């Protein structure tokens, strides 16, 4: 019975970890079992996924980490999804990228990727193609990476007169956040004085 239970938990964990995947060590730590046992559970889960045509995902292993991925045989459908007319509107990846560039311009692709935590070549290509962003300069230093910024079309498209009309970011309006920081500061400060 217990193995059944673990299988489900393993699936939750791998799912939430997404493309980052999980190491055997992480799995064994969270499940509080030894690594040998963890390997068994992962393998059992993998077998279940592979043998069941009802399942569209399975476990793949890259180096030290395990992660979930769609089964290869379903890739024609994924292709269809990507090409379906609906996706002519901007994908979430593109929207996220656009938001980051709008608020943090000028910014390099690498910096956008640091914020998003994933590769961003494709969304940037899309946004340039749709004329929502453009190259606005080059970063200093080696490499001289391209700096991106928004275009006039971007303003037109979203009905903004200037970038100043962008709604403020949550951090800017959230007073509590600052309060929290102040509290933390005083707490630490008190500790220092007391010690």
């Amino acid at each position, binding site marked *: 019975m217990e193995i059944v239970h673990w299988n489900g938990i393993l699936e939750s964990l791998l799912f939430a970890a997404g493309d980052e995947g999980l190491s055997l060590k992480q799995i064994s730590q969270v499940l509080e079992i030894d690594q040998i046992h963890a390997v068994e559970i992962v393998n059992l889960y993998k077998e279940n996924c592979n043998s069941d045509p009802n399942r569209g995902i399975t476990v793949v292993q890259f180096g030290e980490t395990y992660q979930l991925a769609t089964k290869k045989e379903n890739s024609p459908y994924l292709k269809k999804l990507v090409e379906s007319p609906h996706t002519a509107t901007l994908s979430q990846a593109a929207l996220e990228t656009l*938001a980051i560039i709008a608020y943090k311009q000028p910014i390099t692709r690498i910096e956008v990727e640091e914020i998003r935590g994933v590769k961003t070549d494709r969304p940037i290509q899309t946004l340039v193609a749709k004329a929502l962003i453009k190259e606005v300069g080059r970063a200093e230093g080696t490499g001289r990476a391209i700096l991106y910024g928004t275009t006039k079309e971007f303003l037109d498209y979203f009905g903004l007169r200037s970038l100043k009309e962008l709604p403020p970011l949550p951090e800017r309006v959230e007073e509590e956040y600052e309060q929290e920081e102040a509290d933390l500061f005083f707490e*630490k400060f008190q500790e220092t004085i007391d010690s």
Partner: protein
Amino acid sequence: MQYNVKIDAFEGPLDLLLHLINSLEIDIYDIPVASITEQYLSFIHTMKELELDVASEYLVMAATLLAIKSKMLLPQHDENLEEELEFEMEEDPRNELVERLIEYRKYKEAATDLKHLEEERGLIFTKPPSDMSDYSKEQTADKSNLDVSLYDMLGALQKLLRRRKLQKPLSTRISRQEIPIEQRMQEIVRELKKAGRRKKFFDLFPIHEKEHIVVTFLAILELMKRSEILVEQEGNFADIYVMGKE
């Protein structure tokens, strides 16, 4: 009565009134205006004594309460036999306030429901969309069928901000949480030596994490106290420089 509640514990005068009504176990449909006004005023007074900036809304409500209180006193001058009739005919001066309180309370409770939903939702985890760029061909430079609004963009940003980070392995996480000030002080002294003893104040904060910023700042204060560093600023608003001692 002693109140040890702060003004920011309340969402405004209506919230404060509801609090008083609840804690005094008063029937909201039959508010004893005189005593509630007294309570309310003494509360406002306490806040003033604490030199808290009493929002004007609280003062407006105080005036409203006083007005209702004086209206309530009026019918008592009437003849006894007419009293009952008077009461039926004249509208209770408290009505409008009671309606506002009940309306507000409705949404205050709805807010509590939303809070529960928010918590429930926090129990389930989703994943960001997979990278499907391998599946798609070049995007066409077509703007005509673009159908997104500013709010879609903000929504995407929110999802990004909400996206949960994978934690470092549990064992190293614990050691990561506490940065000893002593250690940060040594690091700063070393950094200053490396930089030729002078560095911009803001450059001493490489990691933009609350914890790290606070500890770094405290480390700088401590180093100043021990005269191990000097801090200099040429004029108002000019860059602050931190220098190490020889």
